[in-house]
């Protein structure tokens, strides 16, 4: 089943008088359960592609269907709903809310989804255990290491059981050991939950975990291991 389907998607940015094309007509289908790595040099369009799939941004042209839903004409709130229900994010920086504890950060998407307190508690503790952060549930982000923060961020991304988890350079700010650990966790969760993972990276150590590698250059897909 297709979790994401992009057809001839372009994304142009205008900075002053200069127009730059971050994506030049990309078509790709991401299937259920894939563990896909988007690679390519800086400025190749990895992050832009990830943001478009994540409905954080809108394409200049082309069509994006997420989980069977055409996103072309969705307004801000409808996009927010789609993100809330279908997509989880892990960012390069350790994107936790600094005033909330690890527990509360993971609980936040469940709150936004209107889950009841008992459900929230059970799911949050279960996820923190899954990323081996159960013992640090009550720590604030500034009391956690980078690797620990990223594990909490992964737990948060998985909170609402999203179909699709998007990770933008999740290991970029981590040392090798923590980077490996984070990738192991994502891989395991991919297997255990069947969630689809797409991550942008230019860390060659990460690529070995991917079941599919898509290479971008100058806003175009130049190589896709699936179409070998």
């Amino acid at each position, binding site marked *: 089943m297709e979790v994401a389907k992009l057809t001839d998607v372009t994304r142009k940015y205008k900075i002053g008088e200069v127009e730059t094309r971050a994506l030049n007509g990309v078509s790709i289908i991401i299937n259920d359960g894939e563990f896909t790595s988007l690679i390519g040099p800086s400025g190749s369009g990895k992050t832009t592609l990830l*943001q478009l799939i*994540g409905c*954080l*941004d809108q394409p200049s042209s082309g069509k994006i269907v997420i989980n069977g839903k055409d996103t072309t004409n969705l307004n*801000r*709130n409808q996009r*927010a*709903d789609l*993100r*809330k*229900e279908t997509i*989880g*994010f892990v*960012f*390069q*920086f350790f*994107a*936790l*809310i*600094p*005033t*909330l504890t690890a527990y509360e950060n993971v609980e*936040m*998407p469940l*709150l*936004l*989804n209107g889950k009841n307190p008992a459900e929230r508690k059970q799911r949050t503790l279960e996820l923190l255990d899954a990323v081996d952060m159960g013992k640090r549930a009550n720590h604030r982000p500034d009391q956690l290491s980078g690797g620990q923060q990223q594990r909490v961020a992964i737990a*948060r991304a998985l909170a609402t059981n999203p179909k699709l988890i998007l990770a933008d350079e999740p290991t970029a700010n981590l040392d090798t050991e923590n980077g490996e650990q984070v990738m192991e966790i994502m891989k395991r969760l991919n297997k255990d939950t069947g969630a689809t993972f797409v991550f942008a990276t230019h860390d060659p150590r990460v690529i070995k975990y991917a079941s599919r590698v898509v290479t971008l250059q100058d806003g175009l897909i130049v190589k896709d291991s699936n179409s070998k």
Partner: protein
Amino acid sequence: MMNYFKMAYRNLGRNFRRTLLSGMALAMGTALLMFIAAFFQGEMRSSMETTLRLNTGHLQVKDAEYDPDKFSVAWEYLIENPQQVSAQIEAMDQVQAATPRLFASGIVSVLEESVGVQIMGIIPDSSANDPYRDGLISGEFLTADDREGIVIGAPLAESLGLKVGDQLELLVNTSEGNVDKQKFTIRGIFSTGTTSYDKSVVLLPLAKAQAFSGAADHASMIFILLKDREQADAVAGAIQGNGLQIKTWKELNELLVLINDFSNAYLTVLNLIILGVTATVIVNTLLMSVFERTREIGILTAIGMKGRQIIALFLAEATLLALGGITFGSLIGWAISAYYSKVGVYFGDLGMSNDMLLNDRIYTELTLDSAVNLIVTAFIITILASLYPARMASRMEPVEALHGAQ
């Protein structure tokens, strides 16, 4: 809902000093406004009560021809048989006191110095004269049959170097248009608390004032105090008399009534100005907070928080800030107002005319009404002001918000 406030509380704690300063700005604004409101109210009440008590009363009955500016004691301007008229009026249920008074213009002269005064002939026993009797700071009050005694105000005594027992010479314009003079002995010195009034009035027993000025059995007016001043129109309607004019306190104090009515509008404008400045501080604080937390807002939108939920988050912060600042400010404002309602603020002789008298010392008066009004207004303005930064945060594009902070 609780979660918004929990987050808001922690966010405010992140930059504690800034939160404290903004809260203090709000507190100071509220305290200042509360004090101003209390001061204004005290001032308006004092000027109304002092003017009514000393100068106009609640009702005046005068001859239809009487000209209050000339203090003429010519018989055609005066009321005949005033004691009889006042006794009839005093018998009415709504009336607290009705007493005849005779006004004449005079000059007090001691050695080389002389001062123009208003001579007021009174029935000493009447409770309408309580402000003078209760305000005695030395000596005794007049008796009805005293033929040589006079009571004067403290500032006049001081300026002429007089004390109880001293003699002064009083000149009076008589009913025939002549000038008569006589020596009087000071029986008592009073202070009503209003210097401008106290230095311009001397008191004689009515009978003596009548004889001295040649007014015979006449008086300038019947001075009437009511149990409830709002009854003035009703009582005025009930008083009958040919050739008499009956004026209520509202007619006698048109300017004062007007100022009183306008004072609320004036206070509202002042509130809006001060709260406007305070609101700017709040907007500034929240805007800084929005800019600092751009990335966080990006994260929250990425995980599905909607615009209105972001607004709610910032409104919760503004609400907590407002609750803290306004509560603290109200306590300070209340404490200062309470203190000055006991001690008063001393202004001294403002040189007001007798049309609008003001006590030398203004006592603040904070009513529950105006305090609640102020607190609610301050709260609403703070929340309205915070809408701008809150909406700004809610309209950030998630990509830009996330990107902006990387």
